[in-house]
C-alpha cells in the first residue's frame, strides 16, 4: 500500500513537473492609440508587430508571445494608467509596450515600478521619461537627440542666422531649447524664437514675422498632421522664394510627403530613421509592409520603434525564458546592441535610452515620388539632454 501511494505521488509529481516544462504564453500589453485623430500611432505599431512576427515567428523557443492591444484614444494619462492596471492585474502581462504620448507613458511610471513590469516605449519622445522608472526602456528617440545634429551641422554649412518656430507644448520646448543651445555653441545667431499655439491652422502671420528677420533658415517643430502640412506649404509659398531654408526634425517623414506635396522639396530633416535606407532589414520591412497591408503602406518612426521594441522583448525571452526576473530582463534589454532597419542601434545601460544614428536628409523627387535623401550621417548619438543634465 505504501509503495502504491508513494508511486502515485511520485507519478503525480513527475506529471506536474512535465506540465511546467511545457510551452508558456508570454503576454505583452501594447497601449497605443487606435481611434480618433491619432489612430495612425496604433495602426503603425500593430502593423510593425505583425511584420516582426512574420519575420521571426510568433513564439520564442516554443513559448508563444501573445500581444494584447489596448486603445488609449489619444493623450489621456488617466485612461492609459487604467489600461495598464487592467493589463497587469487581470491579464498578468509580463511586458508593457507602446505609448505614443509622453503623458500616457508618465502616468504608468509609478505603477510599473511597483509591479516591476518591464515597459518598452515605442514613441514618447520627451527626454526625461526614462528617468521616471527603472523599468522604462525606450527604443524610439528623444527630441534633443534628433535636434542637436542639425543644429550642429547648420553653422558649419552657411547657415549663420536662424529663427526658431515651434508649437507651444513640451516636445516643442524640448526641440527649441536643444536647438538654441547647440546652434549658439556652434557660433550661430538666433534672431528670434517664436512659439505658436498648438491649435493654429493658419501659419501665414507667424511666417511673416520670420520673414522680417531675414534669417538664413528657419528651424521648425510641429505636432504632425494638419499643422505640419500647413507649416511646410506656407514655408514654400512665403519663405522659400526669399531664400530661407527649412530645418525640421521629423516633419518631413515620407509617410506625410504625399499630403504635403511638392512644397516640401528641399526641406531639410534631421531624423533617426530615413525610410529609403538601403540595408537588408529595412528593405524587407518595406516590402513586407506593402505585401501585407497594401501599396501605400510607408514605414515611419512609429513602425521601426515597434519593430525594434519587439526585438528587445523576444531577446529577453530567448535569453531568460518565459519565467524571468524583471530586473534581469531590464539588464538584458539595457545591454542590447543590434541592427535595426534604421541602422545600428544600442540601448545605453546608464539611461535605458536609445543610442542611434541621426540622418540629415533633404526632400527630393525621385521617380515621381517624394522621398528623403540622406546627405550626412551622425553616428551613434546619445540623448544630449541627459548628457547635459546628469
Amino acid at each position, binding site marked *: 500500500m505504501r509503495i502504491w501511494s508513494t508511486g502515485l505521488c511520485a507519478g503525480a509529481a513527475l506529471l506536474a513537473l512535465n506540465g511546467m516544462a511545457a510551452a508558456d504564453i508570454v503576454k505583452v500589453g501594447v497601449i497605443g492609440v487606435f481611434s480618433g*485623430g491619432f489612430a495612425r500611432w496604433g495602426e503603425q505599431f500593430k502593423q510593425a508587430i505583425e511584420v516582426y512576427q512574420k519575420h521571426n515567428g510568433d513564439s520564442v523557443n516554443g513559448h508563444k508571445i501573445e500581444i494584447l492591444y489596448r486603445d488609449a484614444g489619444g493623450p489621456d494619462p488617466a485612461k492609459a494608467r487604467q489600461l495598464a492596471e487592467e493589463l497587469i492585474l487581470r491579464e498578468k502581462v509580463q511586458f508593457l509596450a507602446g505609448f505614443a504620448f509622453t503623458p500616457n507613458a508618465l502616468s504608468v511610471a509609478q505603477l510599473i515600478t511597483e509591479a516591476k513590469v518591464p515597459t518598452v516605449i515605442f514613441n514618447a519622445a520627451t527626454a526625461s521619461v526614462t528617468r521616471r522608472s527603472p523599468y522604462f526602456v525606450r527604443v524610439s528617440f528623444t527630441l534633443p537627440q534628433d535636434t542637436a545634429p542639425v543644429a550642429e551641422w547648420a553653422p558649419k554649412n552657411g547657415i549663420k542666422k536662424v529663427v526658431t518656430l515651434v508649437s507651444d507644448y513640451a516636445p516643442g520646448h524640448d526641440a527649441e531649447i536643444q536647438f538654441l543651445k547647440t546652434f549658439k555653441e556652434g557660433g550661430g545667431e538666433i534672431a528670434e524664437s517664436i512659439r*505658436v*499655439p498648438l491649435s*493654429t*491652422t*493658419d501659419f501665414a502671420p507667424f511666417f*511673416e514675422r520670420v520673414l522680417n528677420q531675414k534669417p538664413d533658415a528657419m528651424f521648425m517643430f510641429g505636432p504632425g498632421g494638419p499643422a505640419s*502640412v500647413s507649416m511646410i506649404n506656407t514655408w514654400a509659398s512665403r519663405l522659400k522664394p526669399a531664400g530661407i531654408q527649412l530645418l525640421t526634425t521629423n516633419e518631413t517623414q515620407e509617410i506625410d510627403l504625399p*499630403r504635403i506635396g511638392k512644397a516640401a522639396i528641399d526641406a531639410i530633416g534631421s531624423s533617426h530613421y530615413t525610410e529609403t535606407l538601403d540595408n537588408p532589414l529595412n528593405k524587407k520591412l518595406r516590402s513586407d509592409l506593402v505585401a501585407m497591408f497594401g501599396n501605400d503602406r510607408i514605414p515611419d518612426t512609429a513602425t521601426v520603434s515597434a519593430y525594434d521594441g519587439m526585438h528587445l522583448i523576444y531577446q529577453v525571452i530567448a535569453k531568460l525564458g518565459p519565467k524571468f526576473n524583471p530586473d534581469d530582463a531590464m539588464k538584458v534589454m539595457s545591454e542590447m546592441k543590434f541592427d535595426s532597419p534604421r541602422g545600428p542601434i544600442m540601448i545605453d545601460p546608464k539611461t535605458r535610452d536609445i543610442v542611434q544614428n541621426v540622418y540629415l536628409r533633404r526632400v527630393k523627387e525621385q521617380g515621381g515620388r517624394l522621398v528623403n535623401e540622406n546627405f550626412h550621417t551622425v553616428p551613434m548619438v546619445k540623448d544630449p539632454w541627459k548628457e547635459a543634465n546628469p
Partner: protein
Amino acid sequence: MTSAIVILLDGIAYGMVLFIISVGLTVTMGLMRVVNLAHGGFAMAGGYLAAVMVVAGVPFIVAVIAATAAAGLLGALCELTIFRPLYRKGELAQVLMTFGLTFVMIAALTAMFGTDIKRLPVPDWLGGLVDLGIRPYPTYRLFLIAVGLILALALWLIIDRSLYGAKLRAAVDNPRIARAVGIDVNKLFTITFVGGCALAGFGGIVGAEMLPLEPFYALRYLVLFLVVVAVGGHGSFKGSFFAALTLGIIDTAGKYIWPEISAFIMFTLVFVLLLWRPYGLIPPKAAA
C-alpha cells in the same frame, strides 16, 4: 509697412472664408431659429467631395460647382429627415440631434478616408505667387478675397433687392405675421437651409488651405463659426460679414504681433464685443 499690408490681406482672406461658411449658419439660426451644430459638417462634406473629384481628374471649377450643389442636396436631405421634426421640439433637442449628426459625419468620413488630412489640389492658374509691386503674394489668397467679395455682393443683392430676399427678411423678423400675409414660410425655410448648406460646402472647398480637411473639421472649427454668428447677430447677413472680417483681421494681426497669446487675442475680442453688444453687432429685430 509691407508686412502690415500682407497681414491685412491674409486677415481679409481668412475673414472671407469664415464669412462664406458662417453666413449660411446665421441665416438658418436667425430664420429658422434652429441651432444647427452640424453646419461645419456640411462645409467638411463639400470640401471632401471636391477633393475626391479634383484628385480623380475632374476640372477644378466643375468639381467646385458639383460639390457645392451636393452639399446643398445633403442639406435638403437632412432638412427633410432630421430638421423638420426638430422645429417644434425646442433648442435642447436641436442641439443634441445636430451634435449627434456631427459625430455621425465625423465617423463616416473617418471610415471612408482615415484620419489624415485630405488635400485639395488647386489648379496651376490659382497657385503660385503674384507680384503686388511690394512683394510676391499667394495668388490663391487674392482669389479668396475676390470670391468672398463677389459672394457678399451677390448675397446682398438677393437679400436686399429681390422679392425672395424681402420675404426672407420678413420671415426672420416676424414669422407669424409673415405667414398671415401669405408668405410660405416653410418653403422659405427649406430653400434657405439648402442655400446655407451649399454656401457652407463652398466655403469648405475654397477654405481648404486655411482650414485643412480632416474628419474632425466639423467639431474643430465649429466654435469659430458660432463665434461669427454670435458676434454678427443671428439672422444678420451684414453682421456676419463684418464680424467675420473683424475676427479674421484681428486674429491674423494678433498672431503676427504677439504669437504666444494670439489664440487668446481673438477670444478676448469676442468677449469684449459680446459684453458691448450681447445680441451681436447687428441684433435680430425680434430681440432688439
